[in-house]
């Protein structure tokens, strides 16, 4: 997995080249449309990371063995999902200022994304608040299953309600030119590979931390505490 970051680097360079130089300006939004590529890559990866968090949380509740490792990855995917959602909101707000003249509007897509961000911050706070490992594992998994409801709502919000947010995939097909689509896909894979690397890095950190805590507890036990 350590090779992921070396795959991520050329993908990012290619993505940046395609998005900032290769793709021509969009007809109505002009040069400002170039924010779209990084924004979309981050948004799709965030939704995928939080979907992975849902699947892993389900496995934590269903599996009998390997719960600790699954839970570790569930936490890592939530953290990376929050990071990517924050990046999506930050880049989206700047693009919104150019396209709509305001950093924030209470558009369904924006509102549901902000709610999703707060819900997953709550997931991390819940994990922090519980000391007992087994309880933390179960409670946070149940919480993750409940709050995942918002993830498909974020995706479908522009279809369900009237929205000013652009839609890439419509009933009639893809709403962007083939050149734009290539840049979008390259940027998406660059972000996805980076996210996978970050998840593994965060899970590794947690593994080292738990090993350290276990050894400390064993030593204290030997000393009679």
């Amino acid at each position, binding site marked *: 997995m350590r090779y992921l970051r070396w795959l991520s680097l050329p993908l990012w360079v290619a993505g*940046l080249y395609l998005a*900032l130089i290769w793709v021509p300006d969009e007809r109505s939004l*002009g*040069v*400002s449309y*170039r*924010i779209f590529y*990084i*924004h979309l890559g*981050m948004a799709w990866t965030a939704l995928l990371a939080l979907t992975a968090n849902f699947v892993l949380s389900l496995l934590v509740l269903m599996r009998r063995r390997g719960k600790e490792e699954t839970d570790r990855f569930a936490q890592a995917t939530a953290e990376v999902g929050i*990071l990517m959602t*924050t*990046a999506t909101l*930050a*880049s989206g707000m*700047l*693009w919104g*200022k*150019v396209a709509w003249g305001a950093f924030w509007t209470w558009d369904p897509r924006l509102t549901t994304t902000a709610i999703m961000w707060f819900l997953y911050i709550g997931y991390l706070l819940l994990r922090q608040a519980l000391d007992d490992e087994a309880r933390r594992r179960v409670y946070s998994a149940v919480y993750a299953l409940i709050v995942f409801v918002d993830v498909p709502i974020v995706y479908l919000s522009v279809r369900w309600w009237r929205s000013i947010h652009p839609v890439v995939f419509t009933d009639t097909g893809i709403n962007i030119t083939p050149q734009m689509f290539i840049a979008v896909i390259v940027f998406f894979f660059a972000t996805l590979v*980076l996210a996978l690397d*970050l998840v593994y*890095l*965060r899970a*590794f*950190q947690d593994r*080292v*931390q738990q*090993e*350290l805590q276990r*050894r*400390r507890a064993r*030593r204290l036990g030997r000393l009679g505490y």
Partner: protein
Amino acid sequence: MTVEKQFLEYIFFAYSAVFILIFLFVTNVWRRTQGLKQQLDAMRDDEDQEGES
């Protein structure tokens, strides 16, 4: 300032914001992991010495 120049500024801010966020996350996790690994190695060395004595 022309509109195009203003748009370019926003593009710069958007990409910079994303890179700064990722950089902060990576450096934070990386530095903490290195610190924990050092502590773990030190503890393993202590345990080995205790075992020998």
